[in-house]
């Protein structure tokens, strides 16, 4: 695709690193299963960001050394994790009270689609999905103060994931506040998607061509 001839789309790790840069010290953050989990690798320990897992773990640390695994301590993706000094445990009702109650500064989720009104679709590919699995995605999307989505800008077959209206079943309405793709960073505003940042060499026009929803450029220094 000639659009990308002049630019280099970000890798999954690059996207996680790019997003991680925007998380300030002191934020309480839930990272969704999959790609979002990588974000933690790019937040240095000395910048104190407190990661929550919805299965009742607040203050998760890095993945443990294989010989130091605590088999009672997993994250929402059922991976072994560690607890930082200052971390704590809680049961599921308290964990989701924290999520639903608007106490997380940020949740990062993957998605199939994000609409210009902030709707997100990330849990089910069709209304006829056999045994769809929602997990905590709806609670997180509705509850966190900020919802950032990290996803490829297009599907493998080249369809835009940033849309006017989601065609997949919704996870939450009007919830997304920012999107990090392999091509750009975009805020979701009352006026739709506003581009904060594009990869070097990509023009707004070129980005618009691969984006279903209309884009606007952010005012300088905003």
């Amino acid at each position, binding site marked *: 695709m000639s659009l990308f001839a002049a630019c280099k789309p970000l890798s999954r790790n690059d996207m996680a690193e790019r997003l991680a840069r925007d998380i300030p010290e002191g934020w309480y953050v839930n990272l969704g299963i999959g790609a979002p989990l990588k974000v933690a690798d790019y937040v240095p320990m000395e910048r104190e960001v407190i990661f929550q897992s919805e299965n009742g773990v607040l203050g998760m640390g890095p993945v443990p050394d294989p010989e130091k695994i605590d*088999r009672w301590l997993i994250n929402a993706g059922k991976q072994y994790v560690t607890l930082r000094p200052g971390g704590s445990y809680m049961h*599921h009702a308290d964990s989701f009270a924290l999520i639903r109650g608007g106490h997380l500064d940020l949740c990062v989720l993957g998605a199939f689609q994000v609409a210009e009104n902030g709707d997100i679709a990330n849990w089910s590919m069709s209304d006829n999905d056999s045994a769809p699995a*929602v997990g905590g995605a709806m609670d997180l999307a509705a509850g966190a103060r900020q919802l950032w989505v990290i996803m490829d800008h297009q599907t493998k077959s080249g369809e835009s994931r940033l849309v006017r209206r989601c065609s997949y*079943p919704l996870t939450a309405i009007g919830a997304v506040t920012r999107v990090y793709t392999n091509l750009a960073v975009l805020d979701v505003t009352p006026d739709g998607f506003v581009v904060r940042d594009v990869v070097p060499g990509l023009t707004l026009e070129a980005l618009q061509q691969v984006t279903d929803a209309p884009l606007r450029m952010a005012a300088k220094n905003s």
Partner: protein
Amino acid sequence: MINKIVQTMADAVAGIRDGAVVLLGGFGNIGQPHALLDGLIEQGAKDLTVVSNNAGVGRTGLARLLDLGRVRKIVCSYPRTADPVVFEELYRAGRIELEIVPQGTMAERIRAAGAGIPAFYTATAVGTKLAAGKEEREINGRKYLLEESLPGDVALVEAWEADRWGNLTYRSSGQNFNPIMATAAQLTIVQAQHVVDLGALDPEKVMTPGIYVNRVVHVPYGDPMVP
């Protein structure tokens, strides 16, 4: 003298009836009462409704209970685990009913059942297909769904320590659904890794007070299996 410790698995799971709603603790493999599940399989109750975050892995435990055709309906948030082969087979064959509930709504519905709250409002799932059939109400300018409590006839719980009054502690992320399920059932049955003397538990560290517990059976199996 109050003594909720029972000596055999048969005593622990006695009286679970056909048609019962069974709240099953655990998140993934952690804090799931595998021994009680095996006891329930042995015990024979059928036509069950199981409330559990996941729908079983592999061919043992909950998956085996499903495989034996003993479960009429499953209420869960995440049936799609690493190896949900039994559930998927049954579901595709139309031989099991599925109620998908957002994880936090499920937790709160269970907590509500234990707390005497018959229904509450939540913003989770507003505008999604999981809102179908639910009352929507605007409160202070935001839309919410009415969710009803989710009580059980039986709760199967895994704890770390227990005493003869039924006071329980849990180990790190092994809490998950266990403490709230313990409050929400008519009959709460616990498997505990350690049975300790009355008074040995720190009163400020008891996570489930014995008032919520009917029976405790000692199952010192050690650490959870590596999945």
